[in-house]
């Protein structure tokens, strides 16, 4: 068993190490550290408590780095694991080897955790170097920076690696629904911990990212507000004891518990693992019988609209048609378009339209990006930039059609000016960004996750 775990760990870890993406992540981490610990005269903060900036110490620097890593960098860590070099596994062979599924899952999960911790240590070293420049030399305590940072970020990153492993275990979690669930879990983790402030105290056991409990334990004062990544208008300072916040028994026990949760998720992933199928059943059998015409909706809509010429028209039609596969998307988008013509756009209908378009476009942005397919596509007469243009044009056309009833409603109600930015974003900016991200990262996941966060922000406008 241990030998198998070791083998899978070595292979997975080696693949991470050989990946150029890792070095980009490490470089980004080192440069990012400079901005996670802002200069005293910077016009932003990474942390403010009770409308006051924490007095900088080595431990506080570690805490700031830890909080930013646990909160803001965890989605990026998820993208790195899920869309990185190890996203393609030789499952056709692995699934039929006599190797133990538990060993495989634990070995690969441990490698994912280890690579995130390597990035974390790079960031810690960068933080220690920064502390030399930002603090009087007698106050530089590298161990304090390392300790507070690792205690906050370490379990959070292990949890992210465990989620990645869990989302590989079941077929429906391997695609967009897994990403959506990650987004929900991440958001819930942040919100549940934040809620504890408003209730007068934080419980580290409900704080997977460790940020609220660490701040709460760092001061005896009651906490009325905590700002992460904002800029309160104040020149006040507050003394926070980051070491006390991160080395008290409750906090340490909670971090161990979250490490344990990550371990349990690895085990659970192995237990519930369902192998991929070489041939999958065509989904939507009942829907197919009930709505036989849906399969042709893309063509029916696009054909009369896109008749510019064969050179431009056909590729756009083809891309448009693909956007509406599987067929249930056509039905969902139709319902949303009609709803947009009947109900106010912001926030409900607009949010729903935006969410479905994010899922549809991000999925399609990754469909033609597999390495061998891209190499073959290079031999076609249409150049890569024109292919990207066709895809974006088709996505814009779809977004426009779905928003059209809402646009007409807004024009008739005379409030088009208010929600024009929404339409510009959904029809103009979103398709371009999602497809360019899909092209650059060769997966739809990056665009999907980034725009899910933007979507959440939009709902809270």
């Amino acid at each position: 068993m241990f030998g198998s775990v070791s083998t899978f760990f070595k292979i997975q870890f080696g693949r991470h190490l050989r990946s150029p993406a890792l070095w980009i992540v490490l470089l980004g981490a080192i440069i990012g550290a400079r901005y996670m610990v802002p200069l005293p005269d910077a016009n932003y903060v990474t942390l403010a408590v009770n409308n006051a900036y924490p007095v900088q110490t080595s431990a506080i620097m570690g805490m700031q780095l830890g909080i930013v890593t646990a909160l803001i960098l965890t989605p990026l860590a998820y993208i790195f694991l899920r869309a990185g070099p190890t996203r393609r596994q030789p499952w056709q062979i692995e699934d039929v080897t006599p190797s133990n599924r538990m060993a495989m899952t634990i070995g690969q999960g441990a490698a994912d955790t280890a690579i995130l911790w390597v990035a974390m240590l790079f960031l810690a070293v960068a933080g220690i170097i920064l502390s030399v420049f930002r603090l009087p030399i007698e106050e530089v305590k590298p161990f304090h920076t390392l300790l507070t940072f690792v205690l906050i970020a370490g379990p959070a990153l292990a949890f992210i690696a465990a989620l990645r492993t869990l989302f590989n275990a079941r077929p429906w979690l391997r695609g967009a629904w897994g990403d959506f669930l990650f987004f929900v879990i991440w958001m819930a983790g942040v919100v549940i911990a934040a809620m504890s402030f408003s209730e007068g105290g934080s419980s580290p056991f409900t704080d997977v990212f460790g940020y609220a409990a660490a701040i709460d334990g760092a001061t005896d004062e009651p906490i009325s507000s905590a700002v992460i990544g904002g800029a309160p208008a104040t020149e006040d300072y507050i003394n926070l004891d980051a070491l006390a916040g991160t080395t008290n028994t409750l906090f340490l026990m909670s971090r161990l518990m979250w490490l344990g949760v990550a371990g349990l998720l690895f085990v659970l992933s192995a237990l519930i693992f369902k192998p991929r199928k070489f041939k999958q059943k065509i989904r939507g059998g009942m829907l197919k019988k009930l709505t036989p015409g849906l399969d042709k909706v893309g063509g029916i809509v696009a054909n009369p609209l896109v008749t510019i010429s064969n050179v431009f028209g056909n590729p756009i039609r083809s891309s448009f048609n693909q956007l509406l596969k599987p067929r249930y998307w056509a039905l969902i988008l139709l319902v949303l378009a009609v709803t947009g013509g009947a109900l106010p756009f912001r926030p409900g209908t607009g949010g729903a339209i935006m969410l479905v378009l994010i899922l549809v476009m991000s999925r399609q942005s990754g469909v033609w990006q597999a390495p061998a397919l891209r190499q073959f596509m290079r031999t076609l007469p249409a150049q890569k930039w024109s292919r990207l243009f066709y895809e974006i044009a088709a996505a814009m056309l779809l977004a426009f059609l779905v928003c059209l009833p809402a646009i007409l409603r807004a024009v008739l109600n005379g409030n088009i000016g208010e929600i024009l930015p929404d339409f510009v974003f959904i029809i103009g900016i979103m398709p371009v960004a999602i497809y360019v991200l899909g092209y650059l990262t060769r997966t739809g996941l990056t665009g999907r996750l980034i725009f899910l966060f933007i979507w959440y922000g939009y709902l809270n406008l």
Partner: protein
Amino acid sequence: MLELKSVNHGYKKQIIFRDLNTRFAKGVTVITGPSGAGKSTLLRLCASAERAKSGAISWQGHNIRKSSSGFRKVLGYAPQIIDFPEDISAQDFLFHIGALKSLSRDQIVTQSLEILTRLNLDQDAQKLIRNYSGGMRRRLGLAQAFLGEPECLILDEPTAELDPITAGIVNDLIFSKSEQSVVLMTTHLADHLSGYEYREFKVEGLAG
């Protein structure tokens, strides 16, 4: 006519082709040679999927190493491996590739139907690619290459994974196009070509 002049190519320290000079005229040329000799690499170079380190690869006198856009309009290329988009149908796949070859809708429909029928895939054209077997994928990869009635066909192992009867059908299709086209192909099933007229080009491969 596809012509290679003083072509050199390799990866890192491994030299695959040194000063390769040859011409491929209309008709079928079968590239042969031991495994690892560089047969697929040669096809990739000729198909402009990969750029030779030096030398000239010309189609009708135009160097495709400098500009491949004209050549790609008359090229049909079926590599050995294509990561097909699994969740679209074969028909949608062909329509997309045909569209990127600037074919009209009618041309795509007519040609797809003809090719799929000849390859016995017409009944499965509406199926999602994820439900295709290895042999069906091979034929689909081949079908897209024939779209646009290309003047140059480059086919890497077009009959791999096919049973002898289907391989015969595929060979019939390939050789039926060879009167109008330059056809380069590799195959491990040279025995199946005994009834056809073709040239042979042997790739020896160079040690690293």
